[in-house]
């Protein structure tokens, strides 16, 4: 599926070369991330029931105004002509570098994009206003009860209750699902899948049970939501639902890939610094090829991750002639291979200390492992790429129009 905005405007920049405005976004994001999140604040959130830092979220939304960079102006964002994904990637990269505890993935990339594409700008703008101000959290529930990404059939059903629409069913692994003020649920109706907004304030008496899950990656929270005749508000067109959710997954996958770039680059820098300064047998361990060549391979992985993630961002911006789905899946597969490997290499370079709770590496390693379980992960992306590149009898993987 091609990005509908691609090709409709001509883009005068060069892929991989940041504009001054994009450079400014990166600098802003980096400064913010470094000032707001250090290892101690990240660790402080591990046991926090909300799992994120509301002050940081407000700062991103209200003070820095960067949460709408990739959301269209028609729903209250800043993006024209479907642009802004390079900016979103830069923001996600810098936040990923420090494992920032903010609900960017669930609120902006997933729920925000789905709303922006749902076909009802007014409702989208209304639901997004609190997010763009950093005051509220949204989540998108497009998984099934086993946590698999399954927008075609989440297993939640939509029916007409006495007082309007009500939902029944269970979804799991909902990103930012426990912290969300509103959850956008993909539910099956007689008209096919629909988006239904459920207020998290809905009382258990109304049949909503929200269970925070104990996640391997404590820096990214997931929840299981059970609906039993739970009232909700249907938003958008029936016909737009799956396209909107697919666009949300593209944006979410971009945020994951870019975050992986930031995190991997951080791990590499940590490993290099350790290898430069840690002595064994009277020499820096980085002078041994066993460690040195491992670091070289980590560097190659980080570089390729960055290329693939950035290419996805420029492609989502309509600034390359590549196919959106291909570019995003490629970024997912490349970063999905590189990030865990770089994290494992970081543990090995650090030796025993890298295995301890006190050392920050495990937080990144778990992020890498946890990310692979979201949005279908590298496994599904790889399968789609194989279907597109290898299974077609006529088409070649050369870039088409």
């Amino acid at each position, binding site marked *: 599926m091609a990005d509908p905005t691609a090709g409709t405007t001509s883009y005068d920049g060069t892929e991989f070369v940041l504009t001054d405005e994009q450079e400014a976004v990166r600098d802003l994001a980096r400064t913010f991330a470094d000032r707001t999140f250090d290892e101690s604040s990240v660790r402080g959130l591990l046991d926090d029931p909300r799992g994120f830092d509301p002050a940081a979220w407000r700062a991103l939304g209200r003070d820095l105004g960067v949460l709408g960079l990739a959301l269209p102006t028609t729903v209250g964002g800043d993006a024209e002509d479907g642009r802004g994904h390079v900016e979103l990637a830069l923001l996600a990269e810098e936040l990923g570098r420090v494992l920032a505890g903010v609900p960017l993935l669930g609120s902006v990339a997933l729920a925000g994009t789905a709303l922006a594409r749902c076909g009802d700008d007014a409702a989208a703008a209304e639901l997004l206003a609190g997010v763009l101000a950093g005051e509220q959290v949204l989540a998108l529930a497009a*998984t099934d009860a*086993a*946590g*698999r990404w399954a927008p075609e059939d989440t297993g939640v059903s939509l029916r007409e209750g006495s007082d309007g629409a009500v939902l029944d069913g269970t979804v*799991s*692994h909902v990103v930012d699902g426990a912290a969300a003020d509103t959850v956008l649920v993909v539910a099956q109706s007689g008209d096919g899948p629909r988006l239904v907004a459920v207020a998290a304030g809905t009382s258990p008496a109304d049949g909503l049970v929200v269970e925070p*899950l*104990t*996640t*391997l*990656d*404590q820096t990214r929270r*997931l929840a299981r939501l059970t609906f039993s005749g739970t009232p909700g508000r249907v938003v958008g067109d029936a016909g737009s639902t799956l396209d909107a959710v697919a666009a949300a997954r593209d944006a979410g996958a971009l945020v994951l890939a870019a975050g992986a770039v930031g995190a991997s680059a951080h791990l590499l820098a940590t490993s290099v610094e350790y290898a430069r*300064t*840690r*002595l*064994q*047998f*009277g*020499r820096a361990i980085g002078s*041994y090829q*066993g*460690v040195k060549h491992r670091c070289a391979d980590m560097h190659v992985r980080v570089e390729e991750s960055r290329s693939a993630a950035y290419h996805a961002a420029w492609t989502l911006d309509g600034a390359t002639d590549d196919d959106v789905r291909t570019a995003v899946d490629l970024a997912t597969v490349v970063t999905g291979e590189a990030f865990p490997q770089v994290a*494992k290499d970081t*543990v*090995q370079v650090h*030796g*025993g*200390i*890298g*295995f*301890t*709770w*006190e050392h920050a*590496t*495990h937080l990144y*390693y*778990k992020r890498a*492992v*946890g990310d*692979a*379980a*979201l949005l279908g*992960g590298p*496994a599904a992306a790889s399968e789609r790429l194989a279907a597109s590149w290898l299974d077609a009898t006529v088409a070649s993987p050369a870039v088409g129009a």
Partner: protein
Amino acid sequence: MTSTLDQAPAPTTPDGARARALAAAREVVAGHPPTEVPQREFLEACFDAGLAWVQFPEGLGGLGADQGVQAAVDAVLQGAGGPIPFWLNPMGYGMAAPTVVAHGSRALQERLLKPLYCCDEIWCQLFSEPGVGSDLAGLATRAVPEGNEWVVDGQKVWTSSAHKARWALLLARTDPDQPKHRGLTYFVLDMHQPGVEVRPLRQMTGEAEFNEVHLTGARIPDSHRLGEVGEGWRVAMTTLMNERNAIGGGSSVRGSGTIADALRLWRERPDLHTPVLRERLLRLAVRADAARLTGDRYRAEQGGRPAGPEGSVGKLTGAELNQEVYELCLDLLGPEAALYSGYDPTDAPSAGDPPDLARRFLRSRANTIEGGTSEVLRNVVAERLLGLPGDVRVDTGRPWKEVPRG
């Protein structure tokens, strides 16, 4: 045969000693049925009958027999339901006992060995330090003589069971002016004294399987020294070789060991099967079996002789295989892999629970570090088995205190 471990060992011992040991073993299990009497009673009976370590002298838990007889004795004792002593007190049974019997005074042996075997006294090992990593001989913990004692200051790490240990095997520096390998001495340290502080060391799984041990003016009578002053490295090397071989020992039954977790998951969850994951699992199962057969072959070829550096091969392949096995398990589990049973140390599953794959997955990251990093093991394989030259050394022959550390 794939079932060599179940067979009687090769008859390298005079039949008399062997028959005597087996008779003693049958007598112990008859008089103290291990499934009926308290464990301590059974262990004490074994010790007194000389069945703890048959090759040790009589009166010290042994019979002065050939070590090869132990397998036959263990078959009787464990066949009747007796425990595997190694797992009750690993550092004591596997490392302390052979070292004490080789290097301690008779009085020390008599004091230490029986409580060790009977698990009245648990042992730990104080070798690693935060600063040393693979360069164990570079350790900095000092032991300074004072009258008839040694006073010890320093910090040790990666100590299993330190919180429940009564005794520790300690490697400490007694002469910083010597090159690093020559300034070390080996001691038995009493853990129950004011100068010893044990702090749990939490690991990425959430648990604290190891400890840090801070030594501040801890005292050791000179009679608790094992081997000569300055000979600590040589004494320690015997011990470490035992540890590495124990880690890489491997299994002699196809599909057992770590790979069993992946095979079980595969069998129980056909919903997770894909052709690509099937191929990955098959390759891991093949590697596991090749490693298993190699362990079997080494044992068969070595007969009763102790393992040499070949043991590094099993440790190296086993560690990397473990990691890949649990990576596959998590890939198989898909979204389920995003969950965890809990990071609170009390969340760790007990022995009866189904395997906690995510926890084992995290734990496996240490496999290529503990007991010799994979980098060090590859050096050992290449240098000691293949004869390749060592790396250029900047520390050889220099006094320890002049070699840069950090």
